[in-house]
């Protein structure tokens, strides 16, 4: 699944993520993993809308053991990643905070709901975030099945 997210397109904010969660559920991904992937996608989608210069892409790859959510934009880039990862720190404009965005929890939420989290950013080049969400519920189900057959 790959979605192009437009900068400033607040009216459609979260639509891609809601679709991603429901498509993951339809694809047989367990409910907890689908929810976590939905949360990670939502935060990433909103970051592209609120902060990116020209939008970016939100991609989701379903692997047998994990769901990978990847976000990429072409700028402006994050100056201080550690600061951006601090809970409560936000550079959101007033129009976004008025709507309940910009709580300074976006990247924190993405990390907390992922089992693997990588962020690379360069000023003037762009930002790439990769989140790996292990399909733990599906592992459990599979283990249960294996157990039944042995």
């Amino acid at each position, binding site marked *: 699944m790959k979605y192009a997210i437009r900068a400033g397109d607040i009216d459609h904010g979260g639509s891609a993520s809601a679709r991603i969660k429901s498509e993951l559920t339809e694809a047989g991904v367990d409910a907890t993993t689908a929810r976590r992937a939905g949360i990670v996608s939502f935060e990433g989608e909103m970051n592209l809308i609120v902060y990116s210069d020209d939008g970016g892409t939100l991609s989701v790859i379903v692997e047998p053991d994990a769901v990978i959510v990847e976000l990429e934009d072409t700028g402006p880039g994050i100056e201080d990643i550690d600061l951006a990862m601090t809970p409560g720190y936000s550079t959101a404009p007033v129009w976004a905070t008025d709507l309940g965005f910009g709580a300074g*929890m976006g990247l924190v*939420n993405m990390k907390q709901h992922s089992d693997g989290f990588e962020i690379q950013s360069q000023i003037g080049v762009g930002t790439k975030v990769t989140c790996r969400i292990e399909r733990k519920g599906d592992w459990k189900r599979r283990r249960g099945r294996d157990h039944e057959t042995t």
Partner: protein
Amino acid sequence: MRLPEIIDRLSLSVLTPALGFDSDVTGGYCGDLLSHVLAKATKGDLWITIQHHANVVAVAQVAGIAAILIVDGRLPSEETLARAKDGKIVLLGTTESAFAIAARLHTLLAT
């Protein structure tokens, strides 16, 4: 507790009458910052908020929230209502404040 009983006992308005609303409500979450709602609200929660723009529907879908209760008599836009209908998210309303309605919901769920 089933949602219709909560609607009746708390005299809530149903803003999305075209949708069925017989879900089970197991708890509540009160908040207006969307990232906190995503991280903290759990499946089966009734989300109490002042936010009534279209993005709340996606938040509810992702978090698996039972229904959104918009407080202080605020009314959602046509766009929000359309999005809610598409996403099958029940929107409810009350003229009471978040504090007052959360207290009443808590009492109701505790009995």
